[in-house]
């Protein structure tokens, strides 16, 4: 009897080991997040591994800052993971320029990736005419508001500058902050606000022209946009009550502020949906969302700023390029699986820009998120989309837009001087060929 049991166990162990050994390992270096990691393991790594017998996907989670440095060091040394995950196109640009990423053109053609993706998102990974990256998640900026609070006070959700300033006065009169937001722990938060004011004051068309070099950033329309932001930030204290409090408040605090009625609205990216649902959702109040208000007649229609959160590429020096391609193709070909992952994050993460029809949108997510997904598709489909700085700005001007904005808010330099410096950085980036792909505008 004992002999039989031992034999049986040995067979199981051997067969398990053999199947593990026989599979070729595909490595993926991914940003770590305690809430997200188990879902990624279960619904991405395990689901892929169970779907085929050739490759074994191994996701290695690491704190993003450490990960980016160690991955870069490894890739300089001709090593690194098979699937290269970056925080956006400016990183892809650097790796591509160094010849470290695999050209994906032939695979895209073979597997029809272009037809499966939203066109602007596909083109964000095209460098010098060839595909080098696929967005792992795409996102936008929205305005959240406490629906219960708005209804109790008969406040109107603002759609224009006048309405925004009017409701802001009413909110402040109630002793609340207008918007809940802060930059503690993530200084680049400033660029979210700069992007909103550039796109919703100057208008997406003007921003597009500046990105492609047909308009100077020193144009009065951009000066006015950033003057308005300065007024709302410094003079009016729209965000968390004052500039100083905005600097002092981080992710947990501004979600708590929004949930506890410390603020009536929040300007934030769609990555927040899950946190918002858990935060204000638990408080008993209902939340709503709206496109960011139009801030001038130059940007009259509602628009959504388009952005790439993270990207996926194949390491040109990777040990198992075929396996990496197979993983990417699995993601591109299994819409239901990808949507199932995104659903767990309320479409705040792993929102691969696959073309969706209304029937694809899951019904077991927050109704606000369902509504957002439909509206986002409709409005951007009509060509009303703006540009997020972290997706379309080259590295140097991209850092300048948030780091040096503090200098403007501090009153150390004028908006004109800031934009003069900004233009110089864009000129330099253009001269060095550091600009990033931008989809053609109709």
């Amino acid at each position, binding site marked *: 009897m004992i002999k039989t049991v031992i034999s049986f166990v040995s067979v199981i162990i051997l067969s398990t080991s053999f199947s593990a050994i026989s599979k070729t390992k595909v490595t993926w270096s991914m940003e770590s997040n305690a809430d997200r990691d188990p879902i990624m393991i279960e619904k991405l790594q395990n689901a892929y591994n169970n779907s085929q017998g050739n490759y074994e996907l191994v996701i290695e989670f690491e704190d993003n800052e450490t990960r980016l440095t160690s991955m870069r060091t490894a890739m300089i040394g001709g090593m690194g993971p098979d699937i290269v995950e970056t925080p956006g196109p400016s990183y892809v640009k650097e790796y591509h320029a160094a010849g470290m990423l695999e050209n994906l053109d032939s695979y895209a053609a073979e597997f029809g990736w272009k037809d499966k993706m939203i066109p602007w998102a596909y083109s964000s990974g095209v460098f010098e005419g060839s595909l080098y990256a696929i967005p792992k998640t795409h996102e936008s900026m929205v305005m959240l508001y406490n629906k219960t609070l708005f209804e109790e006070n008969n406040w109107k959700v603002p759609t224009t500058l006048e309405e925004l300033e009017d409701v802001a006065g009413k909110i402040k009169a109630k002793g609340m902050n207008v918007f809940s937001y802060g930059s503690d722990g993530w200084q680049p938060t400033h660029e979210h606000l700069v992007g909103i004011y550039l796109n919703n004051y100057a208008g997406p068309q003007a921003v597009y022209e500046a990105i492609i070099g047909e308009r100077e950033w020193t144009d009065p329309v951009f000066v006015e946009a950033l003057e308005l932001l300065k007024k709302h930030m410094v003079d009016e204290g729209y965000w968390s009550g004052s500039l100083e409090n905005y600097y002092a*408040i981080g992710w947990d605090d501004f979600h708590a502020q929004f949930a506890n009625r410390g603020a009536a609205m929040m300007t934030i990216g769609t990555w927040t949906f899950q946190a918002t649902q858990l935060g204000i959702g638990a408080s008993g109040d209902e939340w709503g969302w709206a496109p960011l208000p139009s801030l001038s007649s130059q940007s009259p229609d509602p628009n959504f700023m388009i952005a790439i959160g993270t990207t996926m590429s194949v390491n040109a020096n990777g040990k198992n390029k075929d396996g990496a391609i197979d993983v990417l193709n699995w993601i591109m070909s299994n819409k239901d699986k990808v949507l199932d992952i995104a659903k767990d994050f309320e479409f705040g993460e792993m929102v691969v820009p696959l073309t969706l029809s209304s029937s694809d949108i899951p019904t077991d997510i927050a109704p606000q998120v369902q509504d957002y997904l439909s509206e986002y598709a409709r409005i951007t489909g009509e060509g009303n989309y703006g540009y997020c700085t972290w997706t379309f700005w080259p590295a140097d001007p991209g850092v300048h837009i948030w780091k040096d904005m503090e200098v403007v808010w501090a009153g150390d330099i004028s908006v004109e001087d800031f934009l003069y410096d900004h233009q110089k950085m864009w000129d330099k980036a253009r001269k060095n060929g550091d600009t990033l792909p931008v989809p053609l505008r109709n």
Partner: protein
Amino acid sequence: MKIFSNKNFVAWYFVFPVAFIHLFVIGIPSLASLALCLTDWRGLGEINYIGFENFIELFDDRYLKKAIINNVIWTIAFLTVPVGIALTCAYLLTGIKRGQMFFRLAFFFPYMLASVINCQIWKYLFHPIHGLGGFFERIGWDFLAVSPFTMKSTSLFAVAFVDGWHFWGFLVVIYLTGMYQVDNHLYEAADIEGATKFQKFRYITLPMIRPVFVFSIMIIIIWSVPVFDYVYILTGGGPAYSSEVIANYMYSQAFERFDVGYSSAIGTLMFFYVMIIVALFGLFRKAGWDI
């Protein structure tokens, strides 16, 4: 081959492992960094020689100038406040017979904590909602309502305060060690002459601990150059570069803007600055200073 078995050569066998590691971990990267300062390398890809372009740009960089000024303020602050407090406390501790170990441990404790923990403690204390400001507001006082880390006028001093709070206990310990080396007969003689406590400190303690004291001054000046972690964690150099220091600026250039060549040029400046300080102390020693 006889040289390798020579008695005088034996010491090199002990030095060799450390020197070998230093060569690879510090020596070669430092030399590479020196070379990179003359290039436009962006951390990946090809490296192009651009001569002294980075240095020309350095002298025109207003934020680097701001960072250098902040480093100088930082150094002066550390040469005065923690040194003054540590000397006083160490001297007072020499007079305490019971419970001295408790105070030594208490003063030294922040030095044993990781910088990130120290920073989180103070960040929390100064937080406008959860910290002291929030507490005072709830009892009707408008005190510490705004975090000093987020005000342009106070951010650098607030960060220096936190770093100084963690550092001064270390100074207490090394000053105390120096003070215990002082011959007790000198104090007895001073007592017979009727010297006050301050006179004993001024004319006996301070001259006798001069090597330790000068050493502490030297390490403060040198350590103030690459100061990074407290600034990075607490303010990231902001708001509006008000707490920016050279090392943080160098990090930002290399890892945020991918301008590794320019960042190396900043590193090279720091390297020469430290070399000058070390050389100065070497000259003082040669001139007969007991350091």
